């Protein structure tokens, strides 16, 4: 009679039963809300999408969609109104934005009905042109399809695992994979959060937390306590303002910070190792001031490079040393911050400081690395000023430092004589190439799409507050709670204790 309405769903017991039966469900769905920077996996019934091809200069980009609403995405973006295309067959279609019906690109679409797909679920692939504008437009269009959201770290893989599409060795590597992907996302988030956009999100998050704390205080304490109605009126104003600001931000695409694309390569090391000389060599112009005086570079110098077809954002940083100079200290802080956000760090060492014995040199370098890098981030060791070493020692180092355990790739160069630079460029190029092959590295469009999805949810939840404000404060508060959680997926999780802390700081509650 009413096929789409479940009759007993409103009763609690019914809900509990469905849960019990899923006891044996496989467990990787559980990767949940624990990682601070990385957003939590939402429930599995969602349909997810992501850019699956590499980043950088490429002719074709592949965007994958997986989950029950995949067919919907195909219908409303590739114009299949009547029936779906034959499975696993490439068709050339116009890809349109479902909201404006504007044509975004012409490309191939493929339909993989479950279970014969990578993830075992209904899936769709869009093969589109590789330009960032096209990719961004398609990702944003997908985000506007009901039931679709950007994939979280490792989510495609987890779903494939769930469907039994991965072998045992792949399953064992899952933890490491997720670690790597969340790390990549964390670095992405850090980059953005340290900028103007980050300050904006953080400000919203702080204001929202305060709104929630005040509504919760009004619910939990107002009857017996001195929490005046004025508190709620101030929340009304804040919620209205926040909703308007977030909606304005979502509408105005140019607003906010332009996200920095490309692989982030950071040059770091002790003072006077020749970091700025390396930067100048790499960009083939005197972008940074070089001098024999230690501590010449005090701020981060940034240059965009095209390295054999791959976009690279190269940063030179202040030399790391303890300094009493306030400006230099700030420079060192910024340098360390940049290293934390880097996809690849070039650790530059003055060869003349190396002990002459190879064993001791390796130990020296290991210790030096641990002082520069926060953990085992990707890096290359660049031993500069090789021209200052005696020929014999140079050869010995060059031969024997390769493949020493616990050390990354080592390149012996001289910025003065250009010795070893060519080999170094080959090593650097192949590292950057590897990084670009992974769609998670340096792909701001992905993060952008994720942020949009969370911000849209946040704004919608704030509208729920307004809707229920006068009739049911519990449901109104639920709206603020969802808003805080959505924004928290960008800025970090917010727990009940944190809200209670704000309550007790702002109100005198006592009975």
């Amino acid at each position: 009679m009413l096929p789409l309405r479940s009759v007993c769903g409103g009763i609690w017991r019914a809900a509990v039963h469905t849960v019990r039966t899923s006891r044996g469900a496989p467990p990787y769905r559980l990767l949940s809300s624990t990682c601070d920077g990385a957003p939590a996996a939402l429930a599995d019934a969602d349909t997810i999408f992501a850019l699956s091809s590499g980043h950088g200069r490429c002719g074709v980009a592949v965007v994958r969609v997986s989950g029950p609403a995949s067919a919907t995405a195909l219908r409303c973006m590739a114009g299949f109104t009547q029936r779906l295309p034959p499975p696993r067959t490439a068709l050339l279609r116009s890809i349109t934005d479902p909201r404006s019906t504007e044509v975004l690109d012409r490309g191939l679409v493929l339909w993989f009905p479950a279970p014969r797909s990578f993830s075992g679920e209904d899936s769709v692939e869009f093969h589109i042109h590789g330009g960032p504008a096209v990719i961004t437009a398609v990702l944003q269009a997908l985000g506007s399809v009901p039931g679709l959201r950007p994939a979280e770290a490792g989510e495609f893989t987890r779903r494939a695992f769930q469907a039994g599409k991965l072998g045992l060795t792949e399953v064992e590597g899952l933890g490491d994979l997720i670690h790597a992907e969340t790390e990549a996302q964390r670095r992405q988030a850090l980059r953005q959060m340290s900028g103007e956009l980050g300050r904006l999100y953080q400000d919203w998050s702080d204001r929202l937390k305060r709104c929630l704390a005040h509504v919760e205080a009004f619910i939990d304490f107002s009857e017996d306590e001195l929490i005046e109605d004025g508190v709620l009126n101030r929340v009304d104003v804040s919620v209205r303002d926040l909703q308007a600001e977030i909606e304005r931000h979502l509408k105005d695409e140019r607003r906010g910070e332009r996200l920095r694309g490309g692989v982030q390569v950071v040059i770091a090391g002790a003072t006077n190792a020749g970091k700025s000389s390396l930067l100048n060599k790499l960009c083939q112009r005197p972008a940074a001031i070089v001098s024999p005086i230690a501590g010449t570079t005090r701020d981060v110098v940034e240059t965009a490079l095209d390295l054999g077809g791959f976009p690279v954002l190269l940063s030179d940083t202040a030399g790391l040393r303890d300094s009493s100079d306030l400006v230099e200290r700030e420079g060192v802080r910024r340098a360390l911050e940049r290293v934390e956000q880097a996809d690849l760090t070039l650790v530059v060492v003055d060869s003349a400081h190396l002990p002459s014995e190879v064993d001791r040199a390796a130990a020296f370098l290991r210790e030096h690395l641990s002082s520069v890098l926060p953990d085992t981030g990707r890096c290359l060791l660049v031993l500069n000023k090789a021209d200052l070493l005696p020929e014999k020692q140079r050869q010995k180092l060059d031969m024997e430092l390769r493949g020493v355990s616990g050390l990354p790739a080592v390149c012996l160069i001289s910025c003065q004589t250009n010795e070893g630079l060519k080999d170094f460029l080959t090593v650097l190029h192949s590292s950057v190439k590897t990084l670009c092959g992974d769609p998670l590295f340096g792909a701001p469009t992905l993060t952008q799409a994720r942020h949009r999805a969370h911000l849209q949810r946040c704004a919608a939840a704030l509208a729920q507050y307004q809707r229920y404000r006068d009739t049911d404060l519990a449901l109104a508060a639920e709206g603020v709670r969802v808003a805080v959680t959505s924004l928290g997926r960008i800025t970090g999780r917010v727990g009940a204790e944190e809200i209670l802390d704000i309550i007790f700081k702002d109100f005198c509650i006592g009975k």
Partner: protein
Amino acid sequence: MGCSSTKPHLAHVGHLAGHQYDVIVVGGGHAGTEAAAAAARVGAETLLITQKIHTIGALSCNPSLGGVGKGQLVKEVDALDGLCGRAGDWAGIHFSILNRRKGPAVWGPRAQLDRQRYRDFIQSELLSTPRLTVLEGSVEELLVTEPNPEEPGHHRVTGIRLANGSHAISARSVVLTTGTFLSGSLFVGQTTSPGGRIGDAPSSPGLSHTLRERLGLRTGRLRTGTPPRIVKDSVDLSLAKLHLPDSHPTPFSFLNTHTHCKPEEQLPCYLTFTTPGVERVVRESLQLNCHIQQDTKGPRYCPSIESRVLRFPGRSHQVWLEPEGVTSDLLYPQGLSMTMPPDIQLRLIREIPPMRRAEIHTPGYGVQYDFVCPTQLSPALQVKSTQGLFLAGQINGTTGYEEAAAQGLWAGANAARWALSMPTVTLSRTESYIGVLIDDLVSRGVTEPYRMFTSRAEFRTSLRPDNADLRLTPKGFEEVGCVSSVRYQESLRVRNSLQDALTALQALFLSTSSWKKKLPSVPISETKSTLLTGLDLLQYNDVTFEMLASAFPESLSSYMEFAQRLKIEAVYKPHCDLNKKEIERIQREENMSLPQDIDYFSLPVSLSDEVREILDRVRPSTLGAATRLEGITPAAVVNLLNYVRVTEKKKETHRNQRHQEAQRDEELCANSASLPQ
């Protein structure tokens, strides 16, 4: 509901020598009485030991029950057939639903109580509970022995030894509910004396010693306080603001349709405020006030008047004057908990206009007491290291009657199940406030006395006071065994009726114009051409179930008794549906249990030292609890998960092997038996 006197099951120490109980409950407060009653309901031979039988069920502090968040706990304890809801309905003298205008999910059923009636009800219930015996005495120590090697744990409890006479009484499990009595000390002014409540000695130092030294449990110290009791006749109530109860009292219990107290017999409360004089007295007497100078953690939300005026100076603070009972000639000044010397207490209260000439009957005082860090407990409230030992109430770092009652019930039911060799049971934070309370305690621990707030419940819109019976009564009967079949049958009747009514509402499927004809007074927008069901209509602010029932009497009038519940179900349904996915995810995680004896430091999976340290310290019981810990990364969760899955597989293979071996042995035995001798 009744409070008739029945034949008491009182025991004398002499009769008990060599007696074996299933469960011994130590303490007769809110946790202890619920624990003892729940254990007996589950089917255990239970002994309740308390220092003084006549203080069983005493309200040591405020004469009230329920409130926002706490009311939810009372409803849930009642849904599991506990005592406090029915006791509140019997003893209540001023009922009100707090937050009435803020939505049914956060309604806070609350009542002022008559202390004497409450105590009478609890005592009479306990003394007429089958399988439950009450003994007056003080416990000197726990009897502890080697653990059962089949189960995790380093010790096993075998009973208790009484203080005088050194009688040992054995039991398979013991529930400790020592409240503020564990190494308790009382503070008034500069005087400190041992005690758990004014007029009562603390529990035996031997008990603290066993917990700390013998069992190696980490303990901490917390404090709380209570206000002076005021002589009612000495207060000029005309200077305070009158506060009336609800004109139709709502009972706490799902079994009661009305309260013992008639609506018109309810007593009022009075509201008054502090003056600058109060702040002056506090400041002048600080050096005479030991308790306030201590740095032991007190509750932030129930601070003494001293901390209130010191933290928020220059303000006027609320003081509620509450009746203590129908025949009592005392008033309870809520908000005036204080620990200064009695003569200064008198000076302070006389700074408040209605109490200009007030007399103090009993001065306020502070209490400091030991608690056991609750992360050492399992979600069944069993001490992880000690088989058969359960803790409930303030000993776990909580505050409040309702929090104590909720834990008591759950610990008592589990202690009984343990004693009767049944698996222990847990409540999820997705299905109840009791689950939220226990999960917060055992997985996060406490830094100050823990009190329930609705803001602690993630699924507040689903965990409402109105549906506690649907959420818990069937589980309490089918899985726990702590619910009577009478209550169970009633909850099934309610559940089926509600489901039928919702089906009937959905079957009313009309166009907007037909609805407009049926309900002319309701503003239904006709812009939508869609059809609407009765359930959709019931979500409208101005539509009540009564209106729908009078429009469609043939299909709806038989459900009139559930009018309010149906309205709430309809309004909350879309929000509960949204909660459902997240709830399912959490419940899946909670179904993955982590072994309690796991050595996280040598676990052969990729985990950082930091994560290992956290896991070792907290020892989460399930993967769900592990994911909620600070500092646990998604990668760590996956690695743990793979480990658990692999180990479970191995265990299963091992079990199968053992089973096969056992079969082989049996066959061998059978063969050898059949051999000719």
